[in-house]
């Protein structure tokens, strides 16, 4: 199956046969460079935090992955809107690829946050509203992927997903605002609020390079996921030609009584 796919695709001029390209290789190299810098500064060069000690270093992973995930969800929302307007496969694939990457990054954030929590708070999870809303957000996009996974006509599926992508994104700012207010109302500052100011120069540099690295990795992954999805669609198109052939054959009298 894979071989037929690549063979017939290579007969089409300029059709991509893999998910890599010159551009993505360059992008990958740059992302790698920033990753190395971020690791060097984050793990080795920057000083430990006054209160949190070396565990502060988790932040250089925690925050970039959140930001990358938010970016991905935003891309999903924009693509969803564009899909409903333009109705092209491009926007559908972009939206769903971004949602997958976003869920991935967000899950990573929650996992490393939980681990961080274990070392700083002594528990994996607290009923901190931000953590709770994070979990809720994740489930919202898991719902998106669940709908995506339901077999359906591609256009129908695309429309369903686009609607969820648009509706869900509205929730992100509302959730975060509501939570801030909730906190602000009757409780003192929380752990999340207390640590981020007062970062030293190398700490800041580590943070920014980690942020850039996180976003580059996210984009790199997104491009590859998109292309993989695109190729999968083309492969199923090839399956379609064959299915059409078989379907028409049903009508030949030789086939006899078919049901």
């Amino acid at each position, binding site marked *: 199956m894979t071989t037929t796919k690549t063979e017939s695709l290579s007969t089409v001029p300029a059709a991509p046969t893999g998910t890599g390209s010159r551009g993505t290789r360059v992008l990958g190299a740059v992302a790698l460079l920033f990753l190395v810098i971020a690791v060097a500064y984050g793990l080795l060069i920057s000083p430990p935090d006054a209160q949190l000690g070396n565990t502060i270093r988790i932040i250089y992973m925690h925050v970039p992955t959140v930001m990358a995930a938010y970016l991905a969800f935003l891309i999903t929302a924009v693509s969803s809107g564009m899909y409903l307007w333009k109705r092209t496969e491009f926007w559908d694939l972009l939206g769903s690829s971004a949602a997958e990457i976003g869920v991935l990054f967000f899950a990573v954030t929650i996992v490393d946050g939980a681990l961080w929590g274990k070392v700083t708070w002594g528990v994996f999870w607290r009923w901190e509203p931000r953590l709770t809303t994070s979990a809720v957000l994740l489930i919202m996009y898991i719902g998106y992927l669940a709908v995506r996974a339901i077999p359906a006509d591609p256009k129908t599926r695309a429309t369903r997903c686009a609607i969820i992508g648009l509706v869900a994104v509205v929730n992100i700012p509302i959730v975060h605002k509501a939570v801030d207010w909730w906190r602000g109302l009757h409780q003192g500052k929380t752990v999340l609020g207390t640590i981020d100011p007062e970062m030293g120069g190398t700490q800041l540099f580590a943070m920014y390079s980690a942020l850039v690295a996180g976003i580059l990795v996210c984009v790199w992954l997104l491009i590859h996921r998109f292309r993989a999805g695109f190729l999968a669609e083309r492969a*199923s198109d090839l399956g379609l030609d064959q299915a*059409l052939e078989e379907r028409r054959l049903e*009508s*030949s*009298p030789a086939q*006899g009584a078919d*049901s």
Partner: protein
Amino acid sequence: MSAIVHLHSAVALIGRFPALAGVDLDVDPGEILLLRGPNGAGKTTLLGVCAGLIGLSSGEAVVLGEDLTSHRRAVRRRVGLLGHDSFLYQDLSVVENLDFWSRAAAATVADGRAALDRLGVASRLFELPVHALSAGQRRRVSFAAMICRRPELWLLDEPHAGLDSAGRDLVDGLMQEAAASGATVMFASHELDRAENVAHRAVTISGGVILPASQPEPASQPEPASQPEP
């Protein structure tokens, strides 16, 4: 464009299965067209495409002058579809259903009552919830809900199924009346003797394509039906 329905190489997928695999079909105004063919041939799918309910994945489709590949919506309110499903709220009574569907179609409540009358639905049944009706009674109510929309294109999926002899004659009469008054009728049927009498023309669909008129019927249709082509 004089054809009411014009399909060219129309391909329609259900899931990933090409239920229609390249259909070419033209239907003239005022025509009564019979779709016949073995089970699973694609008749129901073809009617769904003409109603604008099932999208094409490739090919051309123009119905009632509207291009289905670009905007399917405009067609929908101008066709009447009688499908395998009843299209009725099971918990509402017969008249409540008719009132709702006639008003939804911008007809009056009186149109709905007239349609019930036309279909010979006994007034004893008016206040019964639809789920209490027998199969044939329900089919009549569905038919009434369809005709009170005054559709320009009638799409009927096995319109005779479940009806008693009186009902069958009634349906034949309705189709002929509709065609005479300028509407166009496409219907799928397996009851060839009756169907071919009322149809102006018949096409055979099999394996998702329409067989050329010259080609003999496929093996699963023993009697070579007469095709009174106009």
